[in-house]
């Protein structure tokens, strides 16, 4: 399954901040059901798009050696609908990062309009949930995700990527 809710990165400052872009289109089937005659991008998918933007930022900060999992939505406030034909930008920045986890702040904008504020927590799962074992390979950062960064970040090695 290709569960990717950002189209490309516009800016990427390693370990600090990133800006991604998504074009919303009626070709996305779920918009026809959400809602019939009134298509709007579901808020949960905006959170997912922010989690992908911020999650890649957090993962890259540790050179994709950690399995970065969304652990907590600290805040998600929405101010406007997002409709087909809209281009939204997702602005994420790392607030704190430690060996076990990271927290990020983010905004979704459409042009100059503020659409949402979303703050997230990510867990580096190998360092948490003590005792549980996870697969060796990094199942979070697949090549599909990492290819979004082509041209922005020099990949030092492909280790840790599946």
């Amino acid at each position, binding site marked *: 399954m290709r569960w990717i809710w950002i189209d490309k990165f516009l800016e990427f400052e390693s370990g600090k901040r990133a800006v991604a872009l998504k074009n919303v289109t009626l070709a996305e089937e779920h918009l026809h059901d959400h809602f019939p005659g009134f298509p709007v991008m579901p808020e949960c998918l905006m959170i997912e798009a922010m989690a992908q933007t911020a999650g890649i930022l957090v993962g890259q900060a540790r050179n994709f050696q950690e399995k970065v999992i969304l652990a*907590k939505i600290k805040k998600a406030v929405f101010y406007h609908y997002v409709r087909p034909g809209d281009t939204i930008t997702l602005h994420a920045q790392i607030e*704190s990062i430690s060996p076990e*986890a990271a927290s990020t702040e983010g905004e979704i904008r459409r042009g100059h309009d503020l659409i949402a504020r979303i703050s997230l*927590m990510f867990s580096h799962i190998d360092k948490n949930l003590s005792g549980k074992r996870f697969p060796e390979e990094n199942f979070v950062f697949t090549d599909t995700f990492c290819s979004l960064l082509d041209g922005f970040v020099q990949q030092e090695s492909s280790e840790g990527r599946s």
Partner: protein
Amino acid sequence: MAISREEIFKKVQDVLVDALGLDEEDVTEEATLMGDLGAESIDFLDIVFRLEKTFNIKVPREELFPAESVLNNPEFVSGGKLTAKGLAELKARMPHTDLTDFAKDPDVNKIADLFTVGAIVNFLDAKLNG
């Protein structure tokens, strides 16, 4: 600059209200983080990050919430209770928490009750003013 215990409590209260989505009156000194306030493991990391930012200090998670590493050591746990060695270790790692009652029946399930709001305030008080 010294900061009073009361000021520390007020700031800790704000942090917990934001981190756990609570009302201010829920966050009393005696409230336990997991039992009374519903904190889960990821919330502890969130709280640590927020305390670091609020007080502008480094808060090592294992110092503030040291029970995890004690519980994971088989030397310290036997039959669902802390061994004498485990209890001594926990005492050494939680100097800011009163373990007198817990020591009478050191059931591992009760360890969660030791993490009170007051224990965080004590920890920060010692760190900032100690």
